[in-house]
């Protein structure tokens, strides 16, 4: 194992972490601000991947416009789902949220199967990134760099939004005390719709961005949602930086775990999640829950 190989593996892990971050950060925001356990989150990731095919007809030339349309579609779909389905069940216990969003997962998976077929769908690399770059003489997909930039910019944008805008302050306030926010005259239901739409749009973007590297299948939703939960639980429910840290940890664990113990690579993420839950149940960057009396 020489240096260039290890560096490549590092890059692969980080590229994977980039899509994991886009997938997970919305889940974390939605749980943190709204308390909704969204089991359908991976379905929107899958939907993003398939919508890219629909918008571009599978043509690499349409990639950029397609990515933008997926983001816009994610916002619309997210807002609709929140208004029509999630809103009626806010006051209900968690199990109803889990069940409702699980129902959504089942429905979306079959709808995609109906519309696009059950097989693999692969998308060509966009023209700008179609030729590989070289790192110490070893080739790697230049598309990795795009994924890293996309995730980095999304993280920065989210940070600026949450910590530098009025709306972002409200979102953060919603994670702490909803009643107080309402008393201050903020339209909390509208805010919830916006948070949900943003989270869904990011997941859809992540799914669309992954497709040129990895084929899309209807089954990817079930795997994606579990990965998102692992990332979010490790990083801390409701924490943006936690989602980033969790995504990087899982990305690297996958990339290097497969070198060390290939047959057990699948076990590592769950083992790490269980370990974090046992030692620091609120996650690495999460806040410990206030003691209730």
């Amino acid at each position, binding site marked *: 194992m020489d240096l260039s190989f290890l560096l490549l593996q590092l890059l692969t892990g980080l590229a994977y972490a980039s899509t994991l971050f886009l997938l997970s950060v919305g889940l974390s925001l939605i749980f943190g601000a709204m308390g909704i356990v969204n089991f359908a989150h991976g379905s929107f990731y899958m939907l993003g991947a398939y919508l890219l095919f629909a918008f571009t007809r599978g043509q690499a030339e349409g990639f950029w416009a397609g990515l933008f349309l997926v983001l816009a579609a994610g916002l619309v779909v997210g807002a609709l789902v929140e208004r029509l389905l999630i809103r009626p069940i806010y006051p209900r216990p968690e199990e109803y949220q889990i069940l409702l969003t*699980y129902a959504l997962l089942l429905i979306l998976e079959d709808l995609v199967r109906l519309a696009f077929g059950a097989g693999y769908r692969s998308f060509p690399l966009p023209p700008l990134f179609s030729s590989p770059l070289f790192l110490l003489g070893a080739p790697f997909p230049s598309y990795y760099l795009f994924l890293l930039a996309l995730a980095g910019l999304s993280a920065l944008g989210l940070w600026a939004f949450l910590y530098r805008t009025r709306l972002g302050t409200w979102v953060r306030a919603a994670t702490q005390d909803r009643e107080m926010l309402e008393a201050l005259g903020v339209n909390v239901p509208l805010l919830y719709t916006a948070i949900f739409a943003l989270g869904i749009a990011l997941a859809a973007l992540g799914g669309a961005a992954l497709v040129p590297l990895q084929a899309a299948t209807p089954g990817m939703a079930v795997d994606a949602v579990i990965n998102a939960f692992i990332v979010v639980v490790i990083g801390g429910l409701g924490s943006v930086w936690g989602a980033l840290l969790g995504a990087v940890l899982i990305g690297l664990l996958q990339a290097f775990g497969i070198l060390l113990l290939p047959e057990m690579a699948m076990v590592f993420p769950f083992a790490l999640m269980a370990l974090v839950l046992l030692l620091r149940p609120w996650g690495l960057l999460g806040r410990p829950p206030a003691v209730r009396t």
Partner: protein
Amino acid sequence: MRLGLLVLCLALLGPFLGEYGLKLLSEALILGLYAMAFNLLFHQAGLLSFGQAAFFGVGAYAMALLMARSGWSFLATLPLAFLLGGAAAFLVGFLSLRLTRIYFTMLTLAFAQLLYAVAHKWYAFTGGDNGITDLRPAGPWGESLPFYYLTLGLFGLLVGLLASLERSPFGYALRALRDNRARAEAVGLDGFRHLLLAFALAGAISGVAGALQGALQRSVFPDYLFWTRSAEAIISTILGGSGVFLGPAVGAAAFLFLRVLVQAQTEYWPFFLGLLLLLMVLFFPRGLAGVWARLGRGISLGVERGAPRG
């Protein structure tokens, strides 16, 4: 009482069912038993376990490995499935029960997925994703009717145990812990010990259900441990109504019969299940039991309203 009547009716029905009917009803009883075990935690103790598939799977693999590798008879593996399911649940519960609410749910999910990943990848021991196939219980248990009676007997026995627990001091302790743990512990209840015992028992019963399911299907695969299998227990329970004692079993039967009906028409069963769940959650959150109660109330109200007019 109702349980006894149900078991008696199902027993009398046995000889009139065809091969296919026996298999279907056996499966409904197994899923029902599994959902009832889940509901011991969910309704009585207020614990949402998302890892019930772990113990279902441990029971199934215990049965399959003992039968296929060590030549045990099928009947002898059942108590082992109970014990191993319970032991696995004791361990997972010991670690998970220190957390509450969503963190508890996530940790149980993590442990179940951990076991799934191990079963999926440990080819030498579990056969990996090829599973363990060609399991055929020797003697009468390989036939549909005796197997149905065995399943029915175990269902009656274990659900009877759950029913008597519900009305025991242990059941009341669980409900006290569910309603207000701090207060229950203040009056001297050892919360952790009670919940751990309930968790282990639910795991043991799930283990028996898993072993029966493996024998019925003649094979065991890693998907016995996958999280969607845990979701089946939750779906059955909410579908039937968690607040009514036999609700989860009724929900499990409804779930399976619906699946057979829909799958005969279309391959898009998950879509219909999703739609059904969506409508249930939005409009009938108390499950079939709730629908039943609402119908009953509607009818009786109609009679009362109608009486003066008549």
